[in-house]
């Protein structure tokens, strides 16, 4: 019935010679919306990078169907130099790379319209001429979401998209993510807020270097599982209902 877009087949990933993620087994189905949770260092970012093909697997495989599946990826901390002389509009327009490539022509008016539209969707007036150095962290995150909009990908991976972002911006961007889900896109997001996950994400993958549980969010986020994810300290009570 449902179709697996990305299958993790007993995936193990090593970083710095150490297995930081092992035995991950399961799949992201088309149209699913999955949260990835776990303590710091649990391997959440590593998992997203493996799905993107940015890290090799030490054992097992990542199977993407179709092979050239279109995936957009928002890294945890984009290694972007904010003093770089580019404008907001140029950053957003980068989202069109896959359609246009390094040399293809963009019709000025057409891409201006698309950029302005994407900026409007993330709650900006047309600020495409402004330089990115003039943006706050939250504003810049909105701009990166506008770039994701232009990418128009079937599957979207978000690594802690709301870290350092205020409540209003989080609400707007989360609404956008839910809208993508309704359009039938497949969403995978690394998050720390358990309430947010339970409310908006039907599925959760809980990690602690290995896979603790993967499935229905409410079942996955049981006290027992959370205790395992946090280590043996039994401090799940403290974190319950708040942050992991």
């Amino acid at each position: 019935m449902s179709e697996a877009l990305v299958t993790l087949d007993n995936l193990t990933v090593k970083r710095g010679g150490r297995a930081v993620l092992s035995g991950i087994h399961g799949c992201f189905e088309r149209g699913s919306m999955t949260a990835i949770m776990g303590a710091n260092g649990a391997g959440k970012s590593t998992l997203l990078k493996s799905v993107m093909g940015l890290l090799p697997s030490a054992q097992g495989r990542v199977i993407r169907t179709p092979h050239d599946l279109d995936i957009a990826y928002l890294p945890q901390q984009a290694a972007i130099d904010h003093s770089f002389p580019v404008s907001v509009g140029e950053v957003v327009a980068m989202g069109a790379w896959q359609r246009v490539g390094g040399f293809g022509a963009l019709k000025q008016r057409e891409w201006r319209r698309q950029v302005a539209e994407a900026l409007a969707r993330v709650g900006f007036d047309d600020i495409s001429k402004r330089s990115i150095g003039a943006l706050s962290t939250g504003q810049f995150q909105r701009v990166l979401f506008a770039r994701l909009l232009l990418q128009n990908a079937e599957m979207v991976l978000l690594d802690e998209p709301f870290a350092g972002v205020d409540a209003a911006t989080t609400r707007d961007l989360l609404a956008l993510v839910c809208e993508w889900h309704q359009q039938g896109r497949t969403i995978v997001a690394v998050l720390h807020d358990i309430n947010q996950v339970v409310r908006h994400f039907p599925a959760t993958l809980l990690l602690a270097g290995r896979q603790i549980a993967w499935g229905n969010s409410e079942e996955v986020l049981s006290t027992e599982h959370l205790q395992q994810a946090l280590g043996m300290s039994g401090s799940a009570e403290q974190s319950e209902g708040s942050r992991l």
Partner: protein
Amino acid sequence: MIDWLDQTLWMPFTDFGFMRRALIAGFALSISAGPVGVLLLLRRMSLMGDALSHAVLPGAAIGYLVAGLSLWAMGIGGLVAGLLVAMMAGFTSRRSRLREDASFAGFYLISLAGGVMIVSLRGSSIDLLHVLFGTILAIDANTLYLIAGISSVTLLVLAVIYRPLVMECFDPEFLRTVKGRGGWAHHAFLLLVVLNLIAGFQSLGTLMAVGMMMLPALVARLWTSALGSMMLLSVLVGCAASLIGLVVSFNAGVASGPAIVLSAGAFYLISLVISPGGLLGRQHR
């Protein structure tokens, strides 16, 4: 007053062919070295230009030993040596613990010492001075063609690889995730850097050439924050420095290469104080 201006500014160029050629060489160099310098700066590779300019030395020295003061021999020798060092530095930084700047430093230091030793094998200290500091006042028509050729090729290639190059520089991770390849653009760009250093060392010498690449770029960075205008401004600063440097060198009887680079340096120091991005500006805070 007018007379004096005429004598100092105009006469050197109307009366002496070598001054005219030097000026045109300086302009041609500025037109391409400026934008290349701007991109080096944005890639945080400002010192890489310096390293590469030293790396060119042993190749140029071998060319000089084999064929004397031959434009082509020294140019091709320098090109090969520069590319070799760039490639080895890139390769070792991918395969070892060293970052690119560190492995660059290792190779260019070897290159520099090797180059000086090669020159000392047969040449005199005058030869060494020539290789190190160039002879912009002895530029003949062939050298001019070479410099103008390199300058044109640079602008053309930059125009073609502009988008991937800037993207690769700004957000390489994004480029990888959209399956764009930035690696070749980076290599093409390093080739342009070496080519411009070759063009520069024919006129200014290996040690001075990088000054014409980086100083105008720094000035431009201080004044503007849009990529296009940065490149344009770097070209204008380079041209102005060439003109001022040559005039000063002619009238004061000092070496032309350092005079040109020092003129660019004066622009830099002044900008450092009064520009929007400088010490008195507030934009960077």
